[in-house]
């Protein structure tokens, strides 16, 4: 009995990565340009006037992890959703559904490709940031692991979104209405310790706060929360997404009539 079709998973993965390269202007250049503008405006321009920095770190450097996450979350979600939504929209999903592939091959193919795109973006953004701000990475392996985990988790979320959405409007609504606002309010540009009560407590309910602080710890060795909490929450979110997708494949929700 065949339990896993590695070649099928690799075929989906390769095609999705090639599709991103085919649309490199939209997939890679556009988010890199947007993030660069943040570095110029908030890092180089405004940051240079903030002599005291933020949480003991130069302000330009302080915002690097948050801005990186801002791009990672929105791009992972978009890429993850677009990859599966388009074949649903065009009807080409028939080929995937009739193929000898299950949830494992599909996730490795689609979500793996979306996460790969996010990692390429992260690398380009971090290289670009060196031109505008001075930053260091205190725990590079943790940082790599954390970026991987976040990219995979939000690509999974995007995949769910791509299956849930039945219109382009719905496809775009989650990143715009939820991911970006939560990231902005999640301490991208400030330490939540600066918030007065009750806003600090309210901010604690924002899951992105833990992600931003987790990545900030990887960069500067300090954050508002222990790294274990951030890693645990991200891992829990990933497991939740995988479980939900497994349920989708078992029931055929929005995939099979």
């Amino acid at each position, binding site marked *: *009995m*065949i*339990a896993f*079709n590695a*070649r*099928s998973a*690799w*075929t*989906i993965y*390769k*095609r999705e990565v090639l*599709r991103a390269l*085919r649309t490199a202007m939209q997939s890679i250049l556009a988010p890199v340009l947007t993030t660069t503008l943040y570095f110029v405006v908030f890092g180089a321009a405004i940051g240079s006037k903030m002599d005291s920095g933020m949480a003991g770190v130069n302000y330009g450097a302080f915002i690097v992890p948050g801005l990186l996450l801002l791009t990672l979350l929105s791009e992972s979600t978009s890429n993850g959703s677009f990859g599966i939504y*388009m*074949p649903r929209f*065009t*009807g*080409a999903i*028939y*080929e*995937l*559904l*009739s*193929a*000898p*592939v*299950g949830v494992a091959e599909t996730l490795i193919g689609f979500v793996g490709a979306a996460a790969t795109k996010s990692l390429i973006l992260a690398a380009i953004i971090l290289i670009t940031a060196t031109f505008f701000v001075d930053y260091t990475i205190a725990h590079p392996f943790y940082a790599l692991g954390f970026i991987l985990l976040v990219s995979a988790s939000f690509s999974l979320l995007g995949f769910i979104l791509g299956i849930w959405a039945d219109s382009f409007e719905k496809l775009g609504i989650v990143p715009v209405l939820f991911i970006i606002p939560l990231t902005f309010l999640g301490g991208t540009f400030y330490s939540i310790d600066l918030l007065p009560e009750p806003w600090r407590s309210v901010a604690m309910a924002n899951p992105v706060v833990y992600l931003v602080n987790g990545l900030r710890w990887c960069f500067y060795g300090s954050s508002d929360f222990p790294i274990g909490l951030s890693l645990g929450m991200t891992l829990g979110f990933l497991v939740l997404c995988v479980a939900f997708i497994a349920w989708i494949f078992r029931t*055929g929700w929005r995939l*099979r*009539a």
Partner: protein
Amino acid sequence: MELSPVSRITRGMEPILEISGLTKTYAGGFTALQGVDLTINKGEIFALLGPNGAGKTTLIGAVCGLVRPTSGTMRAFGQDMTHDWRALRARIGLVPQELATDMFETVLHSVNYSRGLFGLAPNAARIEEILRALSLWDKRKAQIRALSGGMKRRVLIAKALAHEPDLLFLDEPTAGVDVELRRDMWAQIAQLRDRGTTIILTTHYIEEAEEMADRVGIIQAGSIRMVEETRSLMKRLGRTEAHIGLATPLAVVPEVLADYNLTLVDGGQELLYRGGNGAGGGKAEVARLTKDLVANGIDYTSIDIRESSLEDIFVDLLEGAAA
């Protein structure tokens, strides 16, 4: 296109697909399949006929994994399809009704993708053979969106053949394709069958089923009404119709012609013959009739003779079922 006699014979009776008691009720309450029982034999071309909404596409979708059946069992290649479904699906191909694929991909890339998706290693020679057979080799580097409708449909066939399926579903394979290309496709489908691929096709060109299929199944309102060999169906229900234009109008059918099934139409200017058995018997009887007309001094100016088609039979059956 006339198929070779051997290809008209259903090869053996080894079942390749066995569907039993298959039902499908959609979430909205519509029942698309009502206890379908159907067996497809290895090596045959089976045509599934039915009006729009009869359940043809749902039935294909259920076998190919696009539709979740409500109840019933399906066995392919002798095994239950719920067990080791990966191995079974790898042997089944599907050409959908809609032209649905990534239109921005090149033909070659798209077909290679299909092969890999079904778990097979790249095989440039095999892909070239498929593309050449479908007259797509010269277009292999073209984006699919740049191709004509007929070519796009052939790309979908090439994609379905890329993993060399033993059982191939063709859902309206020649819809929207011009007559010449349709005949090319028939030839290609016949070649596939000659190589041993079992083919199940749905079509609304009943001429297509008549020309190609070893057996036809008629599905209506989610139930299989009839499954029969095409030739025996034609023989059993086929008829010959002859319109004989008379030089001089008649008031009644002459007594000497009482042995023939004749009626006078068009104000007595035309004799209408209906009879035969769909296997040539009617034509022979019309030949005898014309001799009798001459022998009895009844002059005629024209003869228009035609055999009833599978379409006529199909329409008659559906009308009969509706009544």
